[in-house]
């Protein structure tokens, strides 16, 4: 399914419960229209990975995910030869000539596809998600350059494999380190930040069906106040949604100092952050009542 305009993207994302603003819709549309990778950066838990999943579902594509971590290498990201199977093949060859065996063991049958190669060789619509690229080592970025600019992979024994159909590529990063200029130059850039209370309210309502509208609005505003305290880890959208679910499960229909104090652990996960929130938000409320 092709995307026709930013407004179209926005509508379709809304249909899968992802509420996009102008910037998100336009950037996603451009990524699809220009066939360029999309680098999404922002603090943890603002919906970066969710965006990739939503894009996959609005384009009826399969999501191929490459989760990055320290020590990720070519063999885990791109492809690997199945050594054990090759060894068996050589042992089973018996008196077959070496050249025949040689051609045989470097063929499709012995190739283990990893996410990058899978995404490139697929002929159906694909969204390739390269998650948390900042966690991977700098060398992985070098590996990605060829894949992301030309959508091709070179395997010495098989030759160059070019994408039959360009996948939509989404890279996410928490900005724990600065990515290389070369990689950034090849990507479209989208910075996702914490949403405005109004948008967050709508997100909560979309994600937690059955929540009261005023409670959702109140929740979003309280979270916005919390984010402005100097916390070690400000609450993410995912945590706001969890908080909404918690309140719903406990049957609390209003969010006052007492309710916040009882459920603060859902949004703040550092002891000093909780202390601070208690002092600044909850205590004042108790005094006022």
């Amino acid at each position, binding site marked *: 399914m092709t995307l026709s305009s*930013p407004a179209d993207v926005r509508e379709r994302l809304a249909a899968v419960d992802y509420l996009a603003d102008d910037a998100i819709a336009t950037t996603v549309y451009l990524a699809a229209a220009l066939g360029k990778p999309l680098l999404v950066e922002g603090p943890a838990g603002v919906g970066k990975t969710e965006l990739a999943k939503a894009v996959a579902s609005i384009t009826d594509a399969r999501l191929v995910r490459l989760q990055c971590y320290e020590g990720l290498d070519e063999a885990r990201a791109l492809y690997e030869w199945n050594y054990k199977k090759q060894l068996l093949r050589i042992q089973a060859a018996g008196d077959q000539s070496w050249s025949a065996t040689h051609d045989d063991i470097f063929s499709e049958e012995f190739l283990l596809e990893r996410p990058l190669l899978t995404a490139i060789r697929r002929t159906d619509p694909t969204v390739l998600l390269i998650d948390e690229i900042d966690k991977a080592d700098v060398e992985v970025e070098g590996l990605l350059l060829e894949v992301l600019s030309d959508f091709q992979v070179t395997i010495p024994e098989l030759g160059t494999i070019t994408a039959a159909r360009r996948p939509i590529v989404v890279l996410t990063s928490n*900005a*724990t380190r600065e990515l290389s200029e070369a990689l*950034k130059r090849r990507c479209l850039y989208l910075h996702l930040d914490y949403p405005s209370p109004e948008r967050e309210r709508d997100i909560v309502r979309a994600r937690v069906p059955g929540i009261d509208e005023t409670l959702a609005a*109140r929740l979003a505003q309280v979270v*916005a*106040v919390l984010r402005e305290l100097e916390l*070690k880890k400000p609450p993410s959208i995912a945590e706001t949604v969890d908080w909404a679910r918690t309140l719903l499960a406990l049957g609390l229909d209003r969010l006052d100092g007492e309710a916040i104090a009882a459920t603060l652990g859902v949004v703040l996960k550092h002891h000093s952050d909780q202390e601070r929130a208690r002092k600044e938000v909850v205590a004042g409320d108790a005094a006022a009542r």
Partner: protein
Amino acid sequence: MALLDRHLGFVAALREAGLPVSLAEGLDAVHALAAIDLAERESLRAAYAATLVKRQASREAFDTLFDLWFPPVTGSPEEARERPAYGDPEVRRLRDELSRLLLDGDDDLLRAFARQAVGTYGRGSGGGAGESRWFSYQVLRTLSPETLMAGLLTAVLTERGGLDEKVARRTFTRRVERFERLVAEDVRRRIAEDGGAEKAARGAVRRPLDEVDFLRATRADLAAIRREIHPLARRLAARLAHRRRHGRRGRLDFRRTVRASLSTGGVPLTTHHRPPRPHKPELVVLCDASDSVSSFAHFTLLLTYALREQFARVRAFAFIDDLDEITRFFAPGADVVEAMTRMTREARLVWISGHSDYGRAFGVFEDRYADAVTPKTSLLILGDARSNYGSLNLETVERLAGRARHAYWLNPEPVRDWDTGDSAASAYGAVVPMRECRNLTQLADFVESLA
């Protein structure tokens, strides 16, 4: 053609403002423009942002320039008026309207109102004949939106105090800021129309936060910088951990090597090594806590404490003309803001004058805490080396520096101000290597080299 010229002018202005826009990215932007509906201004902004701005720190500069090159409206049709006196019925009417808009929170109406207000009260007199000037402070002084807060709060709250007030206060503060920004934006637009966008762009773009001078930062800047400290510490810690793992390899791990060789028929194709023992310096920080440089000392302390795991031990001392150990305020898990206030309240830093006296402070340090500095210690001194013409006590500093493994002096003043007035930068610089450390970028670079 006009669009292309505008595009080129815009890209040139971005480069002038320090954004690294490459040729390829400029071309991408043109491709993007062809794919979207140009009449949609926010789409246009998003398209430019996606292709040209690859660092969030540059985003503010980008938005300012975008508003100059692609203004939402043109012309100044409003009739200019003299700034009325306080209490004028017209002003009261406008303030009432603004109040209503802030309560309502509709962005489009607020923007229209800001535009109208700038047109009416923003035109300044003076300058050459026929030259018009625009000022946002005239508009803001006339309407003084910040004084509307009390009325706004009464309008939505039944009782004051507590969480409700906090929530409401936050909402209205944001909206007032938004209004002020809209006024400034419209003023810049009109200046650009009168004198060209290039001229208006000059001076309109603020430097990104990590290049703001500590000593010249406004209160809002300081708060923003403080919020940046933790993310920065996380980035630094990640980078240091990475460097440690990939630096020098440790001794051969015989067991793991043999174990791994089993999968290759007993031939050890790859060797495995033990992780190297991390080098963790002990850190002693001596910081000048007098008013002139205290914000700098705060940031450095915050950053070193945020990176506590990277050091074997951190001890901190603060001085003005007396010196006290302040390590106790920074217990693990303690709240940093709290620690700072306790430090200024409880630590004994002032002896007589309350002006920095480096010579005496170093003397006291050697008398009381001489054992803090050992051959394993990195000694870090923070201050502007302005000792109010008092004694310098150079021999003591030299002795301390000689005993420590490394010694550094971070000076928040720009190098060109060193040795002016009562600054003893070169005198101290001769015994302890002194580095300029004016902004977050330089601070981060230094801390990374230290750990």
